[in-house]
């Protein structure tokens, strides 16, 4: 069964006519062409698909769009402002916190939620906030440093 859903993503309104059981991850990537959001499991185990829903980090692979119609969704595509990267994006690029880059959108989104909530987090708070985001490349050190750098600069 398909139905029309209305989503507000990165400040823009979208409509999609999709099967009811399609996940937010799938709708973002397949129907709205917002492929910046990634997947590593589609079972809620890796954090690669993290987006913000009203500022809260949310696993899009476990979320049904129907439940969040009308709420503010933020994906990696919405982080930059008028083409100027978010300080987290700049810091990740500068410190090579993105190696293959596949976990990066999810990491950035989780980190943004953290900094919005706590502009100067301690190292352990960063570890805690990002512990649901797996990365196989970096050993995490550069990611932690990048979040700290972005926090310093904000």
């Amino acid at each position, binding site marked *: 069964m398909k139905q029309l859903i209305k989503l507000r993503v990165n400040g823009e309104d979208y409509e999609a006519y999709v099967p009811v059981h399609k996940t937010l991850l799938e709708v973002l990537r397949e129907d709205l062409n917002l492929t910046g959001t990634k997947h*590593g499991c589609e079972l809620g185990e890796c954090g690669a698909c993290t987006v913000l829903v009203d500022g809260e980090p949310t696993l899009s692979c476990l979320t049904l769009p129907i439940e969040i119609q009308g709420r503010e969704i933020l994906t990696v595509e919405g982080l930059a402002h008028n083409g100027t990267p978010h300080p987290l994006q700049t810091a990740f*690029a500068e410190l090579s916190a993105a190696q*293959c880059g596949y976990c990066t959108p999810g990491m950035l989104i989780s980190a943004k939620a953290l900094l919005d909530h706590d502009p100067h987090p301690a190292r352990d708070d960063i570890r805690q906030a990002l512990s649901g985001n797996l990365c196989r490349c970096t050993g995490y050190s550069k990611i932690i440093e990048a979040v700290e750098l972005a926090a310093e600069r904000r």
Partner: protein
Amino acid sequence: MTDELTLIGKPLPKVDALGKVTGETKYADDLAMPRMLHAKILGCHYPHARIKHIGTARAQALPGVVAIITGADLPVKYGNLPVSQDETGLAGDKGRFVGDPIAAVAAVDEETAERAIDLIDVEYEELPAFMSVEDVLTKEGEPIQDYGDQGNVHKMVALEFGDTESGFAAADYVREDTFFYQGNTHLPMEEHAVVAHYTADGKLTLWSSTQCPHYVHRALSKALAIAPSRVRIIATPVGGGFGGKSDPLPHEVAAAKLSMITGRPVKIALTREEVFYAHRGRHPVLMWAKTGVRKDGSITAMHFKTFLDGGAYGSYGVASTYYTGALQPVTYKVPTYKFEGMRAFTNKPACGPKRGHGTPQPRFGMEIQLDKIAEAIGISPVDIRRKFVVDENSYTVNHLRITSCALGECIDKVAAASGFNDKHRKLPFGKGVGLACSSYLSGAGLPIYWNNMPHTSVQIKIDRGGGVAVLCGSTDIGQGSNSVLAYTVAEVLGVSLDAIQLTVSDTDLTPIDLGSYSSRVTFMMGNAAIEAASKLKKLIMEAAAEKLQLPVEALAAKNNSIYCIDDERRSLTFAQAAQLAEAKHGGLGAMGSYTPPKLAGPFRGSGVGPSPAYSYSACVAQVDVDPETGEIKVEKIWIAHDCGRAINPLLVIGQTEGSVYMGLGEALMEEQDFRRNQHKIPSLLDYKSLTMMDMPEVETILVEPIDPEGPFGAKEAGQGPLLPVPPAVANAVYDAVGVRIDELPITADKVLKALALKAEGKEPRVGPKGVPSFVFPEPVRVEPHPQAPKLRGA
């Protein structure tokens, strides 16, 4: 100061970093095309079963299903190694492990394809399953493959360099140990994906997350019987590889075939579970090691036996087998050496190359054994290593050529930084430190299929605006090869990075590079890039010299300018000079290539192990072990890595930290485990890996001898630093609580078990009891290389 480097050695951001942080980078599964079909794969339900019949009628009848293929549609065998042509994409005669691809369905969407898969009726005849090396040596039944050295023994190797018997006779102390290194998998965050499109003109194009587009090109052309010129492979940016995307894989073949049948683009995106089946990961290896030393700790003889549990297909397994014996003599002086290895086919997903390819397992055994020996003869773990490091510009007993080596400095620095000597055997019960070292290749010295051609080539074109187009088949899997390529060319030509346009990993457009494996790319591509850029630089400098009426030697190129060294006002822009050169010579283009020097020794099997240069690492782990729970907390890792010159220290440190992370995962928790003939844990939740909470602080020390043959003196960073981590942790656990865990992963329950044995007064050790009594063939006896370390007094 004209020879000062502008870009090389600087901590620059990667050239493709912004695409990755903005979500712009398109990975394979981000691609979509008009009329694109989605395909799903049916995996075999049994570990070993003859496929008697596949009924597709019910699936075919499902609305939305467009095409179904089975093994019958893919009869031609291919494989990465010429000696292991044992895959077809979809298995035809029989399935060889649970999950082995046997059929594929293309449909209008993924969901329909998935439903159709469930409607395929397969009739099987179950065959005895072989789930371990022991099964292979003791159980009767039809072999898994119809080739190999005997039954399910895929490969046997036996080599002896010098006379190990006299070596052991000359020793004051000899010990024998057994070790087990559990299998584990790459677990790239990106699940493999491919889009295949066979167009009306008979051309097949594949966009795939592969580390080796050239090998996919070769395999597809063979498997599908299409001329190589009609196949184009484009490696999309790879979301993590670590070796797992180096084989041509079944889903690539299946998607291509389905596209050929339907004439429409076909996508296959593997699920996480299927990624566990695609595997090609770390071989589980059971080992026996015997080492003899004199009182001072110098090694007189070493003998290794390895038993590799290979899984159902050959993959790179023959090379993996040799690698379990090749690099032991590359770190410390070993005057006599014997190696016997075997690989068994088992009914599990095929093992292959994972970061360190076949060398972390013996390194684990060797470095623990040295620790035990050091204690037994009463010398420090530092001395037993430091005093006997191989010499620069020497050869090993097994004919490997060593050029630069700064292992001694690595050991000194890591010991000093960690305060090793003040801590070892001196920390309170429960806390401990462990040391281990290693070495790794900077690229395999020989190609996987025999030929005399270069291993890589780089092409450069310069346009009139001063833009520099650089083309190479190399594939960026996150390690930063695109950046290394850009830095190298920009450095040689004296242009800024924004002048460089890269086109990479596209078999139609880019010259061949063998792929992102064996830590070969920086070394080989880097040298080819220098050669290509230098050819063009010569033309441009000559044209500029003519115009400025100066000798070429008086000029330098830097910051997009060609100028007189003594009077910088006399200058041309790079673009002006390029135009002059074009007017003089015609369009500006050049190729550069790299072929390693001939390094193979005079014996069969000498093709695995040689490398144009070896990297070296030394690692100290500090752990806190809770004797009540057995829980191990790694408090800190110090690692010193001899990478040659660091082309970009930021990226090298990133590779080192990533290697340490992966080594810790293997040391403490990662295992590709099987229960009741099935993969026990094909999910990210159950396959444990380190999270940000678990990862300790890592202090990386780069040691940078300038390698004589590396590009700007560089060697490698992507794999070597993983190797010393597991044995360093094992040695640290022993220092902390006095128990030996001789098998990976080192888990809390094993520590508790060993502590209980200790309390009972038994040998405080958990590890394999022995190795199978397997008769290896008579070893091939090889005279040690004349410049190898000598057995004193022999």
